[in-house]
């Protein structure tokens, strides 16, 4: 109740500029045209569509993620978030986020080998992915895109290593119909190359996981947005008890709450991307907040959409079930999203005191 100390004045502009709007539209058009839900279903359960992945790469979705001085097109994290949104909206069966996060991690490393791997990644000869959890007592973990990739970047102790397998391990079925596989990341396994070591390796890996979460959050929020759209379409055309389903206040309010959560999560994710790009040492709690909000919003939106579609929403024929499976199936791969709260808590004193 006493006078607060003078605060920083910050702009609060969530709008897309012309170039960002162009990225948004280009990828929205592309994914809408190329990836109807039938294509998502056709790629199940492996969750990989080789032809689509080729087109995504051709469009530059991987190369744009790499800085210009490392051979890429130097897009910002904001641009990458806008791409991930469109990927998530259609639930495209391609390892986009893993490839982007891995490529950017390689680009962050000094080793010559890393540069070679990065070059191979940019040409498409190689498709690396990322093991999200530091390798500990148990050398095995579930790796996203691990069923379609032959290379995994992993943090083993303080060593950042690239593990190469002769062929991707067997796909493991999962709720999201994602390209998951169990990888053995122990020192003994396969072809193993140390790309970096020490605190810098640890920080480079942590940054890659943060980016994977940022982009996955963007995808989740947009998945939620599409689930809301499907819910709105359904309840605006079906009747019950003599009126349109969507005119019942309880139905409408559930959708409103889901749409609200999704809108907030999308804006918060974009804001977090802005800070990560332009002010990476400030407001570091924004990235875990954005990821947490997006994971929760996606589950809320999918659950709501299933429910307001009634029996139809619970039948696999309904496309909301596609979103439902990814909402949880994607958001738990990096561990319980609510554990982000500890990361948030670690940053609060610096940001608010």
């Amino acid at each position: 109740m006493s006078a607060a100390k003078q605060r920083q004045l910050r702009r609060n502009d969530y709008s897309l500029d012309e170039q960002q709007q162009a990225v948004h539209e280009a990828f929205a058009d592309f994914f809408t045209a190329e990836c109807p839900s039938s294509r998502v279903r056709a790629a199940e359960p492996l969750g990989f569509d080789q032809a689509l992945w080729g087109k995504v790469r051709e469009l530059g979705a991987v190369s744009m993620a790499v800085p210009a001085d490392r051979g890429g097109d130097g897009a910002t994290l904001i641009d990458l978030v806008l791409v991930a949104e469109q990927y998530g909206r259609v639930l495209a069966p391609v390892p986009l986020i893993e490839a982007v996060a891995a490529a950017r991690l390689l680009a962050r490393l000094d080793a010559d080998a890393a540069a070679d791997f990065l070059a191979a990644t940019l040409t498409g000869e190689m498709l690396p992915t990322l093991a999200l959890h530091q390798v500990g007592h148990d050398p095995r973990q579930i790796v996203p895109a691990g069923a379609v990739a032959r290379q995994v970047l992993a943090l083993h102790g303080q060593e950042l290593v690239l593990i190469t397998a002769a062929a991707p391990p067997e796909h493991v079925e999962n709720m999201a119909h994602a390209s998951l596989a169990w990888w053995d990341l122990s020192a003994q396994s396969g072809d193993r190359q140390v790309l970096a070591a020490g605190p810098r390796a640890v920080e480079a890996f942590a940054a890659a996981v943060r980016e994977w979460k940022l982009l996955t959050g963007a995808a989740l929020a947009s998945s939620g947005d599409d689930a809301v759209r499907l819910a709105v379409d359904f309840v605006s055309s079906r009747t019950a008890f003599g009126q349109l389903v969507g005119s019942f206040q309880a139905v409408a309010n559930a959708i409103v709450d889901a749409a609200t959560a999704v809108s907030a999560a999308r804006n918060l994710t974009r804001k977090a991307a802005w800070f990560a790009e332009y002010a990476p040492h400030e407001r570091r709690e924004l990235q875990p907040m954005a990821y947490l909000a997006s994971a929760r919003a996606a589950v809320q939106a999918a659950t709501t959409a299933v429910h307001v579609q009634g029996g139809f929403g619970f039948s696999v024929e309904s496309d909301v079930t596609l979103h439902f499976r990814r909402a949880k199936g994607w958001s738990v791969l990096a561990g319980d999203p609510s554990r982000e709260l500890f990361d948030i808590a670690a940053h609060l004193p610096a940001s608010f005191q």
Partner: protein
Amino acid sequence: MDFSTVELTDETREFRRDVSEFLDVHLNEAVLETERRTGAGHSQPLHRALASRGWVQPTWPVDEGGAGLDPLQNRILQLELADRDAPMISSGTTRIVVGAVRSYGSPWLKEQVLPAVAAGEVICCLGYTEPDGGSDLAGVRTGAVRDGTGWVINGAKMFTTGAQHCQYCFLVTRTNTEVPKHKGITTFLVPLDRAGIEIRPIETLGGERTNAVFYTDVRIEDDYRLGPVDQGWKVLSGPLSDEHGLQRGDAELDEINGQGAGYRATLDRLFRHALHWALTAGPDGSRPYDEPFVQLRLAEIATDLEIARSTPGAMGRVNGSELLIRDSALLVDLVGPTAVLPHGATGASEDGLFEWGHRYAQGTATYGGTTDIMRNIVAQRVLGLPRPPRFDG
């Protein structure tokens, strides 16, 4: 008030052992695996075996095909079946239909159906929901038209679970379009082997199979009618409110939370497995439960379980479903990546239980009347809140 442990007599203890041994044999892994694969909600081998003991209608007298169980014995049987995850969906729908047949069936129909039900030869499904109708039973459009002494039926029903293995469907039809909606409804018990019936499978998110059933010029005799013409609404108020879980058995052992009891039991199972997971030491010797974060989450869910159990009637149906939906999602989060691996997948936590639980939970808010409708019932019947204005009869 009484929450004491029931002291079992020697006879009841013996009965319990009998049930347990019986189910060890007949509710075996093959039955469970078939159910997981097909989602049929029914096992004919198990059902036949139950019938051989009179346990399809266990509280019926022995001379009617039952086993004459007392409420405690019946509770023991039902708990054992539930604890072992027996596929009993069609048994449940049959139970609802039997009530309507007893009250409204012609003597001939009763003779046709009731002994055969007890013998495990007949099971029945529910033909309620229509493609555009949702939960609005009064808006039914499937028509039944007089044809000589019988009827001709045309229309379509969605979500007729069990139609592929049932002998009869309890069908809600419109027989009068000139009167307010709920005054022009008639109910029938339709034999599913009649010409003109087509059954198409519907797969669900939860893995259960249900069906769309199409009726094209299906002819049935008037003997299959349940209750007076155009007065089906009255017939429905029995089974429907039963399906809505508003009635409670007599036994002081019974749950008070109506239809929510089954959903709470599912949450109970998920919770027990999660607690087991949390108390199991990992490779580094620590247990997840050592961490306050895990303790807080599981304590919340354990509290929800008691809340669901203590919530009466229609309120309990809402809580049973919604707490299951919320907590099944939180449990997947808590357990982490191995919780999204399904039954049979390498490394799936608790053999895929969490992956299944999160999907299964979603349907519980819709089965047998949505939670939205249940809230309306609580508002109007329990709390006496005013009804919204209506536009149609």
